[in-house]
């Protein structure tokens, strides 16, 4: 099972804005953090990987498929956008049922898989609640549930910890780490601590350019803290 993501010389321009500038990256299975400031190009990169945005230049393959094979890629990835929600009047299990249907899951598959997934994200007790009655953290967990519903081998998650309280944030990190067993999970964040606590490996984007890619230990190197390493990496003294 191919869980690799290979990005070579990827560029993306919106008109004159260069959002990604010659990014090359090879991601194997496990948890992979994507760190960068606001506007660094994280969302742009994730959207390209999720086949929701065309690239300008370069080549990308996801799970063994070229990025142009959108339909195949959509079958093997789970995607949680930075900003998302659900139809507010649907119940939690109905929302999952609908999205499972759109992923081509059969009735039987959905019937067995949805309770499992809900337990996994700790929403089983709330399965009959309406989406509008969920808290921000619960909604994010539902977001993860829909992303892993069809058991994708690659998970692309945008800013999963933004706006969560400290306890919920820790839960979330643990959940992502657990999901990374046998999968590739790539998640973006601008919170250094998220990466520090979970990832073995990370990539750092700064204004569309890749400034670091590798092991956390190498990233920190001789600096005292990860913050210091980050500030050095993005070149702001």
């Amino acid at each position: 099972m191919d869980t690799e993501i290979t990005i070579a010389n990827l560029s993306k321009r919106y008109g004159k804005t260069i959002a990604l500038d010659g990014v090359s990256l090879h991601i194997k299975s496990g948890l992979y953090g994507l760190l960068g400031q606001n506007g660094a190009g994280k969302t742009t990169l994730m959207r390209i990987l999720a086949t929701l945005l065309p690239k300008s230049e370069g080549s990308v393959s996801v799970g063994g498929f070229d990025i142009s094979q959108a339909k195949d890629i959509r079958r093997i990835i789970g995607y949680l956008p930075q900003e998302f929600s659900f139809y507010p009047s649907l119940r939690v299990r109905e929302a999952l049922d609908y999205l499972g249907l759109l992923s081509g899951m059969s009735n039987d598959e959905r019937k067995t898989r949805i309770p499992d997934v809900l337990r996994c994200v700790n929403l089983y007790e709330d399965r009959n609640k309406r989406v509008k009655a969920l808290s921000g953290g619960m909604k994010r967990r539902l977001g993860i549930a829909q992303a892993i519903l069809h058991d994708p081998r690659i998970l692309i998650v945008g800013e999963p910890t933004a706006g969560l309280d400290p306890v919920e944030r820790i839960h979330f990190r643990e959940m992502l780490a657990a999901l990374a067993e046998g999968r590739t999970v790539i998640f973006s964040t601008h919170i250094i601590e998220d990466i520090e606590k979970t990832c073995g490996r990370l990539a750092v984007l700064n204004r569309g350019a890749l400034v670091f890619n590798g092991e956390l230990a190498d990233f920190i190197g001789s600096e005292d803290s990860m913050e210091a390493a980050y500030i050095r990496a993005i070149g702001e003294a």
Partner: protein
Amino acid sequence: MPPDERTGDFGRVNAVIPEKTMPNACATLATEYLYERGNSFADGYSDISGVPNYIRQGYMSYSELGFIQRKTLSPEGRSEIADILYRITGLTAEEISSSINGLYEPLPFEYRSENDYSGRIPVLVDYGTFTKEMRRVDQIIGGNSAYAEKKLILFATREATYEEKYAEYEGVVKDDMVTNAYARYYCDYMMIMVALLCIFIPVSLLLRDRRARMSELLASRSVGSAQFIAVRYAASVTMALLPVFLISLIPTAEFIVWGGRHGIRVDPFAFIKYEALWLLPTILAITGVGFLLTVLTDTPVAIPVQIAWSWIAIMGTGMALMDIQSGVGGWWLVLRFNLVGGHDTIMANATHILANRVLYAALGIGLMLLTVAIYEMRRKGRIDVLGKIRFAAANRKISDSSVAAE
């Protein structure tokens, strides 16, 4: 119920009655002639302030598509019309006009029989000569005018006979099996409702994705765009048709009971049939417009566009209503037939009506397929009309505020 012979009143029907048809046609022709020439307002007739300008502008006729047109003539055509009027009546247009107490607003075709100028305008020719002259007039105007041979019947009415009324009743009972006649009448009203309201269904259905910030979650699923759009299209069409269908169950049930009691055979599927053949194509087309414009722009722009189109169609077909009855059909989105009965008229025009309906059904499906193609591009981020505008607007705000801060 069959008509009651004792009342002696069986309504009126259009008919060719030479002593009425000829003077009425000449009066109308003289009026249109004077208005078009626009210089005729001799003593006493100059006050035409109440007459809208467009009426003054020419001879009313229908285009191939059923639109009302105003034709203006060349000087030769104009003088030929004057000659024809003179040959028939021995009077000039001005003289005709003064003998009928001045200019009146030329009425839409279907109301022209309401004026009766018999006895007030001399007619010097027989009906055969008259029709020949009228054929020439129609030619000069360019066809499909009030003076076309088929339309001359609209210049006069007479009382209907008991036999005619009875035949009409029989038509309803036998040919239409009662319910078909009422189903058309029902669909005529529902057509207006559907034309104006059903656009809200697809637009709100599709905009809900954006409002619920659901679009990216949907777009990243593996479902094919064709399936995704087609299923939603079908759902939207069903939602538009369902209330119309459910309401029609009531009269259907009533007619079945009534028919059973009086031993009259009614068609239990009449309402469904007319809903599917008469109404559904309009719904398909409107839903197609809603899908295309909403998926393309992610805005509710389809609503004003469609309401404008429907409004024009309702107005247009309202004028052409009588026209369908007399054989020249419209190609409008909205078909109207505000009559209980009229089986023969419908059958006589069945091909045209069917062609009209097939056209709009095909248009609707075509727009849906186009929407599939557009959605396929959109979900890959290849078309983002509104996104670009929004992004530019958001950026401007940011740069404005940073300028202000400096």
